[in-house]
Structures are given as structure tokens and as C-alpha cells.
């Protein structure tokens, strides 16, 4: 009996110490860029995305339904939201309404598994749009708050197969590291939603484990920060083999200098150098046991 207890205790301790087993290569799930014209049109297309996702969802696990609403913006003194890819601005209230319709669409068309419906935005030209660091902090804060409100909606409607989180495409080339970090800090301060970081480590070193330079004055440590600080979780864009090399450098630096670092999975796309499955496998081969079984795909 004593030997059994020791064995179990060792197993538990081992779980806390050693990398988890490598996940099998996941099947890709669709992610969407949001183009809207009016709040009603936004909701209408979000419903379609939720239903389309549910009908095509592979397997029985939890998968991320990522809707990328464009760049985070402060719309007026008390209103935050996003400017979407058609150059239309939407408040977080508009975005919440659209996310609720995505939840309805997923519910109506649900076949198997469950979904984490994610409010995505980006750091595109935050400074150029006139936002201060404080504004950006609040953008992250209110983004997490919006995800939490979506979760409340899901619970109130009896959508037990769903939850909600947030995400951001924080590209080094699109704005400075210092202001981009405020998105993560604000989100962490609100403290509810996971913050999937789905972007490239643009211009970062492709080998080694040093805190080398990336594009636009960023360093590998900055990429590590916005992808792991607080509730941030890396879901890196792996479109070409070089992207996997760059993210591996980030992981090595962060692990050596800050804390343990694992990838939630991979963000991929059609039409680029790596197929979605090859993208996941490429990152996985360089980070054995440290890549989760998510594979979000734009264009799938």
C-alpha cells in the first residue's frame, strides 16, 4: 500500500514537472476576419459563422471559434470597440451582440464537442489612431469584460457546450511593444478571459535562445510577454517554417528567463507556405509536448 502511495505521489509530482504528452495533430477549425457594414449585418454574419463552425466541427473536444473584429479602438470618451476590416467602427456593445448571435448559431447547429467563442482584435496602428497607453489598457480591460458578458449570456441561455474568451493579433510591425503590452495588462487586470495571442513573431531571431531583436524595436522577450503574461496564451501564426523557428526562440528565452511556456496550438491559413496540419507539425516538432491541440485556420 505504501509503495502504491509513493507511486501515485510520484506521478502527481511528475505531472507538475515534466512536459505533457504530445497531442495528436488536430484537425483545423475555421476562424474568420470580420467585415461589417452595420451592427445588424455584423450580427447576421456572426450567426452564420457560429452555425458554419458547429456543423463542421471535428471531434468531441473544445475548439476555438475565433472572430477577428479588427483593430482595438477607443470610439469616444467612454466607448471602446474595434475598427473592422471594412473600415467600419463597432462598439463593444455591438460586438457583444454579434458574439451572442454567433453563440446562437453554434447552439442551433451544434453537432458535437464544445466551443470557446473568442473576441479577437489587433494592435494595428493603435498609436496612429490617437490612442494613449491608458486607452489601450482600457481596450484590453473592456475586451475581457465583453468576453465575460458573452459567457453570462451563454450561461443564461443554457448553452453548456460553450464558453467565451478573448484574443489579439499583436504584430510587432503594427505598433510598438510598450503600447501593445497595455492590451495584455488591461486584459489581465480585468482577469476573466484567456487572451489568445494569434500573430507572427515578425522579424524575430530564427535560432538560438537570446533576446534578439524583432521588427519595429520589439525583442523576443516582448513577444514572450504579450503571449504569456497574465492570462495571455500563445496561439502563434505559423504560415512558413521560419515562423516556427522564431516562436521556438521566444519559447526558449521565456522559459530560461521568466517561466514555463507552452503553446495553446497554432493559427494557420490556407494559401501560404505550410498547410494547417504541416504548420502544427512544424511547431510541434520543435517544441515536443508543448503545443496544445488547437489549430485555428483562416480560410479553411
Amino acid at each position, binding site marked *: 500500500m505504501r509503495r502504491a502511495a509513493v507511486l501515485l505521489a510520484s*506521478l502527481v509530482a511528475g505531472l507538475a514537472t515534466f512536459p505533457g504528452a504530445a497531442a495528436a495533430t488536430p484537425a483545423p477549425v475555421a476562424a474568420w476576419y470580420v467585415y461589417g457594414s452595420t451592427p445588424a449585418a455584423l450580427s447576421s*454574419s456572426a450567426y452564420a459563422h457560429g452555425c458554419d463552425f458547429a456543423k463542421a466541427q471535428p471531434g468531441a473536444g473544445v475548439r476555438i471559434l475565433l472572430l477577428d473584429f479588427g483593430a482595438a479602438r477607443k470610439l469616444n470618451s467612454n466607448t471602446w470597440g474595434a475598427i473592422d476590416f471594412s473600415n467600419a467602427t463597432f462598439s463593444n456593445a455591438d460586438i457583444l451582440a454579434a458574439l451572442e448571435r454567433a453563440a446562437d448559431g453554434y447552439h442551433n447547429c451544434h453537432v458535437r464537442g464544445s466551443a470557446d467563442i473568442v473576441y479577437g482584435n489587433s494592435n494595428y496602428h493603435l498609436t496612429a489612431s490617437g490612442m494613449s497607453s491608458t486607452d489601450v489598457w482600457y481596450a484590453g480591460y473592456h475586451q475581457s469584460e465583453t468576453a465575460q458578458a458573452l459567457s453570462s449570456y451563454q450561461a443564461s441561455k443554457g448553452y453548456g457546450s460553450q464558453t467565451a474568451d478573448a484574443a489579439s493579433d499583436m504584430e510587432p510591425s503594427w505598433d510598438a511593444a510598450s503600447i501593445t503590452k497595455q492590451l495584455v495588462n488591461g486584459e489581465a487586470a480585468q482577469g476573466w478571459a484567456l487572451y489568445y495571442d494569434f500573430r507572427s513573431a*515578425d522579424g524575430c531571431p530564427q535560432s538560438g535562445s537570446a533576446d534578439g531583436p524583432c521588427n519595429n524595436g520589439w525583442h523576443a522577450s516582448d513577444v514572450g510577454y504579450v503571449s504569456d503574461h497574465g492570462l495571455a496564451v500563445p496561439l502563434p501564426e505559423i504560415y512558413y517554417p521560419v515562423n516556427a523557428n522564431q516562436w521556438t526562440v521566444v519559447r526558449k528565452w521565456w522559459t530560461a528567463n521568466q517561466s514555463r511556456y507552452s503553446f495553446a496550438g497554432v493559427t494557420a491559413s490556407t494559401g501560404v507556405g505550410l498547410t494547417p496540419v504541416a504548420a502544427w507539425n512544424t511547431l510541434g516538432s520543435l517544441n515536443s509536448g508543448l503545443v496544445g491541440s488547437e489549430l485555428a485556420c483562416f480560410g479553411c
Partner: protein
Amino acid sequence: MLRLLTVAACVLAVGGAFAIPRLGFAGSAPPDKAAALRRLGAIATTDSNTKPVAPPDPVVRSIPARMLGPDAPTPIPPAVLRVRNGWLASDGRTLVAVYAGSAGDDPSVGRLVVVRQNLVSGNQTVRIVAPDTTGALAIAGAPLGLLAKTAALRIRTTRGRLLRLDLDTDTVAGSTLTRSSRTAATVTHRLPPRSSDQVSHPPGR
């Protein structure tokens, strides 16, 4: 001793319930993320509400064709495309957006990215059209406003050469370009041609 075994087994079970391998987390979750990961690990696979909800009224709201400048966010990461400009049109049911520029890792390679969405069925495609060593590309001529038909955009290379992007086939051709170029993209759902993709007044007319 039995209690110890039970506790150990429970810890083991809870660790597994975090879906830790799913998110790549080895062992216990980082403290800041623990609550959110617990929530993620506790999602059911069925809804207690088994009744369908009323879908929103379909909204068919066209977006007049327009150029997209630097103020408009681009969805294409810089690793794929250094965007010079873009163009967008939607008839309310389908949408096409074209982004022009150069490859993220080689400014001598011109590149176009075409994003299409079916706003009714919800599907989306992303296609890269790469006309090779043309230098950065920019959209130089495109129909604007409410369109009946759109078929092509005029594309200009850094050396001033004009190309034509055919939106029916997503191919590029030009008077001095000897071949149409198109990536072997793994596109799974190509949207059918639709009226908003036809040009009512072709660029250059």
C-alpha cells in the same frame, strides 16, 4: 493511507480535467490562468437548452466598393504580406477583399491576397496570388461605389507595369507578363462566381 491515495488520485484527475495537453500546459496550470483553464476544462458537450433559438433576420446590406488605405486594418499578417493598399466590395451576401503589396520576407516578390466570404453560409476563403518578381504591387484601378458587376482590378508594379487581376479566376495577367500566376493554395471552399464580382466599367475604360 487510503485517504492519501484518494487525494493523490483526485489531484491527478483534476490536472487531467484542465485539458492541459489541449492547451499545451504541462502539469499544473500557471496561477494567473488557473481559473480560466478550470472553466475551459469544465465545458459540457451538450446544452441544457435543447430548443433552437430564432436566428437573426438575414441582413443583406451591401458595402459599396471602396479602396482601403492605411487607416483600415488589414487581416493579413506582415509575415505574409507588406500591404500597400486594398480594395473591398460586398453585395451583402458575398464579400471580396483584395490586398496588394509584397511578400513579407522578400520585397522583390509582388503579392496579392484575396479574401472572400459568403455572409449567408458563413464560409471564408483566403487565396494568395503571387506574380513573382514584380516588386511590390498596388491596386491602381478599381471600380468604386455600388456595383452591378466586378471582374477585374488594375494592378501596378513598382516599375510602373500594369497587370490585371481577374477576380473570376484569381489570376494575374499583363502585357509584359508572360504567364498567369496563381499559387497552388489549399483552398477548400471556393465561393461561386457572383454578380458583384463582375465589372460594370472595367478599370482603364
